[in-house]
């Protein structure tokens, strides 16, 4: 039964990592990176690494998205309004 759980969590990590790269808009990518962090935290718990899961949760749930979104806000206000992928 643990094999099935490991496989499911590995699949979810791979899917969210691919999604994080496929999403081109940085603000939307911050959302997918947060979900990737959650998937990684589950995988770390399944592989019996609670400390690493805890640090991934602490860093990935609020800190990294805040940094990325603040950078996007600063870059969007400074740079030209690139039409492209708005």
């Amino acid at each position, binding site marked *: 039964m643990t094999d099935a759980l490991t496989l499911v969590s590995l699949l979810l990590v791979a899917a969210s990592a691919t999604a994080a790269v496929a999403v081109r808009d940085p603000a939307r990518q911050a959302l997918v990176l947060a979900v990737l962090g959650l998937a990684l935290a589950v995988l770390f718990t399944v592989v019996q690494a*609670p*400390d690493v*899961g*805890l*640090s991934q*949760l*602490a*860093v990935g749930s*609020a*800190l990294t998205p*805040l*940094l990325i979104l*603040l*950078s996007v*806000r*600063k870059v*969007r*206000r*400074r740079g030209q309004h690139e039409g492209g992928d708005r």
Partner: protein
Amino acid sequence: MSRRMRMWVLATGGLAVAVLLVAGYARLPHFGGAVHPYGERAVSAALARHTANVISSVNFDLRAFDTLGEETILFGAVLGTVVLLRQTRDEREVPPAPAEVAPPVRRYALIMLPVALLTGLYVVAHGQLSPGGGFQGGVVVATALHLLYIGADYRALEKIRPVGTYEVGDAAGEAAYLVLGVAGLLGGSAFLANTLLPYGTFNTLASGGTVPLLNAAVGMEVACAVVVLLARFLDQAVEIEEDNGSAMGKES
């Protein structure tokens, strides 16, 4: 180099790396195998020093010098960010406008700030017992403080977060780690050696010799470093405007 050519280089490079990785993985020990020589030695060394959380023991006792290096990376990165994101001459500081926030969200932020702070301190204090440690707890404490920005606005956060104090706290955390290391040296054994304090009874808060103290020093440094980091990012994103195109700076 045209974009198409760059794609070809990427494709061939990626394919070569993939082939090498798969070839390497075939010879790695199977996933879930039972051969973990370093693991057994680390566990026995940690138990000899009455540290319940072997991972914290590896981090702050067996490999304390590497963690000192990692602390210096953290300190250097924050220093770099502070230097990079300083306010330049052609920019001016604009006081942040107060934002209207729905009352339930404000109450939630007010209630959750102390609870998150307590959780962070709990994770730091029990670093050498249950899962957790200085790193994770420090980040939780720093994020707890920023609930005030999320729940209200940047002006409220600035009132209770003097950045200078946190920069001093960041340096003090790093210094405390070094002082504990040198104390080991003065105590007659090696730098950062865990021979200074008695190991205490197993699975209690005072067990593990210098591990809890190093944990607390790292917790303080990570918390202050993340606060300073976020302070710089918030200043840039919320307050600092460029002077010439001030009209452009108004709308988003």
